């Protein structure tokens, strides 16, 4: 016990903290034989890969030199291509003079998304705000009423990705709720219908649904009613999202104890008001982390519409690469596009983490 009563220095010397931190990291890196082996293994791996990557990404790269010739001679990445082509990469084949319109649309959607993820702004008027924003977005994109008209076949790039994501999830959400309720229904015809629909959509790759939508719709529908490629892809994405959201919401519904239904019945609430006022608010609250994950999957999935000929970010990247003046820096372009998707879904993932930590709010 004598050792414990030794007077400790009131303040550690400045060098001591340094030493302590050093010692701690040395312990973490080499404390046990396993840690030492891991450090050596990953150290060799990082030393072998990181410096060449950095050299390519930054040191040898052409950053702002606007002439394509600089890229031809440089050993590193050609970022000036991204810089010179940013308009085409982000907005695709949208008419050159009208690019301010998709730019505003992108900013509007991103701002609204940022606003919507604040738990404080979750209220029925948020839905009204989105409806108003969507009308504005379609007016800005498609034109009419004073703006030059732009057909959906000329839409491209980031706004297509964002609009597809937002509209598909927005429409799929109420459909998903209905499907989830139908799957838990006591009426066998409704339950079986919902199960067949949900399970067959979930059993299929999104690409095959997109293909089927683009192959079958011209056969299913009379020619006059045939929607264009954009709407076809949107329908396929919405059906896909609805099936996945339905399962997530069903998970939330299963977490609601029977007492809630009994209490609502005791108050004499009819079925739909029970769901709307009592069950769904709690079920969705429980399901929010899983919902956020589904939304990340949908953000990533919109990148698949290129295979049915829609002009999303990847297709506009490919189109920009076709310019013969430039040395076709494909890796840089797809890295840039990947970074956009990464930024979108990574920020959403962090938001989901935040909600998970926050836990369900008390009612």
């Amino acid at each position, binding site marked *: 016990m004598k050792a414990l009563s030794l007077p400790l220095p009131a303040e550690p010397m400045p060098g001591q903290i340094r030493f302590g931190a050093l010692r701690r*990291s040395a312990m*973490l*890196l080499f*404390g046990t034989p396993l*840690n030492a082996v*891991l*450090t050596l*293994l*990953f*150290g060799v*791996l*990082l030393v072998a890969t990181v410096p060449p990557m950095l050299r390519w990404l930054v040191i040898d790269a052409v950053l702002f030199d606007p002439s394509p010739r600089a890229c031809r001679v440089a050993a590193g990445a050609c970022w000036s291509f991204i810089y010179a082509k940013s308009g085409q990469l982000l907005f695709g084949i949208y008419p050159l003079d009208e690019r301010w319109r998709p730019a505003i649309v992108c900013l509007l959607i991103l701002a609204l998304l940022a606003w919507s993820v604040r738990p404080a702004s979750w209220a029925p008027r948020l839905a009204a705000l989105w409806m108003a924003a969507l009308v504005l977005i379609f007016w800005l994109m498609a034109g009419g009423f004073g703006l030059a008209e732009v057909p959906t076949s000329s839409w491209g790039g980031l706004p297509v990705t964002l609009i597809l994501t937002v509209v598909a999830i927005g429409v799929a959400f109420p459909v998903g709720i209905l499907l989830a309720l139908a799957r838990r229904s*006591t*009426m*066998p*015809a*409704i339950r079986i*219908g919902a199960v067949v629909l949900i399970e*067959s959509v979930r*059993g*299929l*790759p*999104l*690409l*095959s649904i997109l*293909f*089927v939508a683009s*192959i*079958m719709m*011209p*056969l*299913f*529908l*009379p*020619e006059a009613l045939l929607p264009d490629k954009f709407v076809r892809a949107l329908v396929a994405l919405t059906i896909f999202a609805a099936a996945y959201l339905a399962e997530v919401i069903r998970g939330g519904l299963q977490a609601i104890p029977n007492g809630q239904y009994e209490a609502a019945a005791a108050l004499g609430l009819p079925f739909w008001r029970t769901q709307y006022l009592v069950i769904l608010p709690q079920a969705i609250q429980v399901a929010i982390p899983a919902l956020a994950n589904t939304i*990340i999957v949908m953000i*990533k*999935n919109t*990148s*698949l519409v*290129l*295979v049915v000929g829609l002009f999303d970010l*990847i297709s506009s990247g490919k189109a920009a690469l076709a310019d013969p003046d430039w040395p076709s820096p*494909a*890796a840089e*372009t*797809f*890295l840039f*596009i*990947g970074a956009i*998707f*990464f930024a979108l*879904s*990574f920020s959403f*993932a962090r938001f989901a983490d935040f909600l998970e930590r926050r836990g369900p709010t008390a009612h």
Partner: protein
Amino acid sequence: MLSDARTRSIIIQCALVAVAAAFAALLVSTTFANLRARGIPIGFDFLTMPSRIVISEAILTYKSRDPYYWAIATGLANTVFISAVVIVFSSALGLVVGITRLSSNPLAAGTCRVWVEVARNSPPIVLLIFLYSLWWKVLPPVGEALNPLPGVYASMRGFVVPAVSMDVATPGLLVIALALALAAAGWAAARRRWLPPLTAPAILAVGIAGLWLADAKFFVDWPTFTGSNFKGGKDLTPELSTILIGLIIYTTGFVAEIVRGGVLSVGRGQWDAGHSLGLPRGKILRLIIIPQMLRVIVPPLNSQYINVVKNSTLAIAVGYPDFLAVMNTIISKSSHSIEGVFIILGVYLALNLSLSSAANWYNRRIAIVER
């Protein structure tokens, strides 16, 4: 009151079924009208006709004069091959990455975390196109091929690996031996939750004895460089290699997260309880920790495996002929779109349902038996 609610429910269901039937009838009649208007025949008899489509590479042998059904089988074999390779490799890698993420070593945990975040937050199709664009940038021409492992070469033309082939004199004996080994495994699995220690060697011995009796010979075909190209070995084209590497990188990120969740879900108290019973570490791991971990990781792992089958359709992005790409070519070539769509839907549903029922069977076996 009860009869009232019941009649109402019956009326609602009848109305729903009637609406669905009317909708389906409308779709079918419009479809037939559209098909007649365009003069497109319906029927599956085109399957036996020669396809004359080109499949750029295949696991099975395929020639363009083969019938349509063989083209479909070739595409399906490619899809199954990609899925199987990706599932095996990403499960093993994911186990390592997931456990390394829990390590106290910041270098190891950090690197694995970067891997997981990149995989989880980038669309697989962008990852594949990016990797494909790197191919000609990073790898040397065929004359200066990298040789990272003996017999493995990497160059602009893809990977070349040693090929293993087997020559069996009497295939019947081999089949009998394999059936015996399978039956023994099934019997052992049915009798006990954990296989008795001697079963695995016994099954192996039966298999090896079967191989020996059937007079099987193994050949390893090592690739050799001859002037301008490789001779022998198995060629993995840049397209196939890209889709395999890309999907393995992508899936590993998800498997790693599932494994990490599984490890974290078993509390420290379980280890302590095992120690206090005097069990050695290996037994605690085998009898206490792993069974509880499996229970947590099998359901999400199952949906991940199904995702691999679905993601294999992205092969189309780099031009590898998987099942969906082949079907797409067949549909545009033969204009039998309805039949093609039914085959696409049927095959993917069958693949995914069989995968998930296998996983569900396994899941039931390891689930908690509650009284």
